């Protein structure tokens, strides 16, 4: 073991993460760049292709056998690796035949999945879901992603779109969502929603990190924000518990950020 690897990529609404992963799960190299979300489909495809090609070159230099490139992306990904519907966080991404486009550009096998499903697969393999038969994964970021693991397999539904847990409606006629509906859970439980709550409540902190620092220092306004945010998260989790009867719920996302190596500047500027 040790000479076979794959490139893994995680395309979120804000950040693109990529790395070279050995077949025992060890991440040999990882980098991040701001996702070129607002620059449109071609710019984002170019960015993904440039980063993947660079990592492919590195894997070649290290004399690894490259199994291919796996991509987790925000949005509704069908069973053929097409982004059938993008979230509002990646404008113009709907309809992108991502598997086909990347196989053509990279000349290696490519597989594409929803980003939360990819995170759940990672946690199931080596993380908090290692010993769980049935669990729910939620990711708190620009939006709220979700994945349902049943009998240690990701439940995909009829077209591959199962797990859009952030779009369960928790408030009738609530906040407008990027999906066109109102009152979706992600409008209350995402980091975007947390930032909105911070503004509404008039706390001094301007970032989530500062908010949690204020909380540690006993600031009552910060406590009030965190209490309401926790309640918003919990109401959706309680619904999921009633529907899926999981053994555990794994919570990931921006709050739990690891230290990483930034991608070289050209990745962000592609």
């Amino acid at each position: 073991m040790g000479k076979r690897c794959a490139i893994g990529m995680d395309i979120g609404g804000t950040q693109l993460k990529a790395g070279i992963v050995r077949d025992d799960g060890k991440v040999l190299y990882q980098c991040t760049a701001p996702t070129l979300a607002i620059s449109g489909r071609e710019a984002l495809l170019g960015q993904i292709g440039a980063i993947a090609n660079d990592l492919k070159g590195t894997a070649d230099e290290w004399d690894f056998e490259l199994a291919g490139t796996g991509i987790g992306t925000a949005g509704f990904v069908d069973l053929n690796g097409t982004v059938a519907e993008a979230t509002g966080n990646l404008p113009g991404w709907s309809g992108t035949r991502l598997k086909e486009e990347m196989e053509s550009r990279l000349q290696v096998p490519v597989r594409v999945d929803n980003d939360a499903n990819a995170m759940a697969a990672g946690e199931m393999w080596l993380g908090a879901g290692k010993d769980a038969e049935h669990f729910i994964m939620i990711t708190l970021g620009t939006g709220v992603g979700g994945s349902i693991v049943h009998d240690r397999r990701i439940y995909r539904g009829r077209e591959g779109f199962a797990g859009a847990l952030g779009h369960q409606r928790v408030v009738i006629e609530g906040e407008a969502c990027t999906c066109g509906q109102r009152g979706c859970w992600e409008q209350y439980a995402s980091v975007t929603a947390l930032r909105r709550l911070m503004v509404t409540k008039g706390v001094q902190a301007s970032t989530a990190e500062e908010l949690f620092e204020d909380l540690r220092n006993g600031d009552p306004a910060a406590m009030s924000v965190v209490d309401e945010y926790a309640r918003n998260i919990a109401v959706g989790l309680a619904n999921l518990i009633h529907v899926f009867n999981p053994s555990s719920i794994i919570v990931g996302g921006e709050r739990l950020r690891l230290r990483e190596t930034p991608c070289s500047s050209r990745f962000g500027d592609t």
Partner: protein
Amino acid sequence: MFEPIRGYVKKFSLSAYNRGAGVAIRKAVLGNAAGVIGAAKLLLDPQK
């Protein structure tokens, strides 16, 4: 952050059915690497 979430989950799921009992609310341990590892796994172990 996790303690208030656990507290509210318990409160909201406490009913005649008590579905929330015994459900562990866990922090993801791989952080930002989870998506990269899971995406790579699509190629390294395509069964899942």
